[in-house]
């Protein structure tokens, strides 16, 4: 675990300009951690919605409030982002779209796709 070789470490986040592939890579981690943190409230919602008709209606009312809706859309974006970039990683593991040009394009595609999915859901529902 110890850092044996003395390579320079340059981690000033304000001075690093990441390429889009790097952005989606860190976003994959951040969204993953945040999704784990969203598991307890999600499970609580599932628990209550399956308890009895009154609790189900309470859940429905809660989900129609503005803060719950905002949180829901954030969670949806996090999930779709993690989902699309996950597929991208699986393809990269299979040596598909491994060259820089294609990897960059697919990174943009994952980003755009996640935003598009949230917008589409907002319109469709």
């Amino acid at each position: 675990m110890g850092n044996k070789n003395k390579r320079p470490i340059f981690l000033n986040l304000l001075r690093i300009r990441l390429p889009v592939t790097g952005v989606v890579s860190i976003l994959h981690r951040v969204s993953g951690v945040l999704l784990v943190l969203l598991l307890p409230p999600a499970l609580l919602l599932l628990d209550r919605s399956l308890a009895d008709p009154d609790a189900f209606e309470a859940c429905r009312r809660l989900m129609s409030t503005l803060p719950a809706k905002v949180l829901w859309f954030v969670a949806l974006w996090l999930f779709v982002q993690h989902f699309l970039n996950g597929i991208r990683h699986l393809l990269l593991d299979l040596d598909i779209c491994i060259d820089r040009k294609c990897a960059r394009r697919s990174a943009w595609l994952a980003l755009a796709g996640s935003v598009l999915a949230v917008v589409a859901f907002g319109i469709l529902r």
Partner: protein
Amino acid sequence: MNIPGARSSSQSGFIEWLLQRLTSVYVAGFAVYVAIVLLVCPPVDFEAWRGWFGSGFVRLGWALFVVLLLIHAWIGMRSVFMDYLHPLWLRLSVLVLTATGLLALGFWAAAILLRVAP
């Protein structure tokens, strides 16, 4: 030090790497299935919601989903902590806390799944 069953350095982490990918395939596939069900025929009331959730194969699908999702979450959190938490005591405490939390979520989910049995 010779630890029985220990993997050589070239193999260390391989099982986690593979499990992360295998679990992701099921979790992603089941998520798409649930999304389609909820979009195409959203449960109108409690009876419909519980009826769908309680049916055999759906419940089995959820049970598998929970187990594989928790494995996926564990490996993901583990690699994040291994990258950013360097003092051993801190890394170990956070890992133990995470494992306990995920395990608790698993038992909670199991209780829900058993309760909705028809």
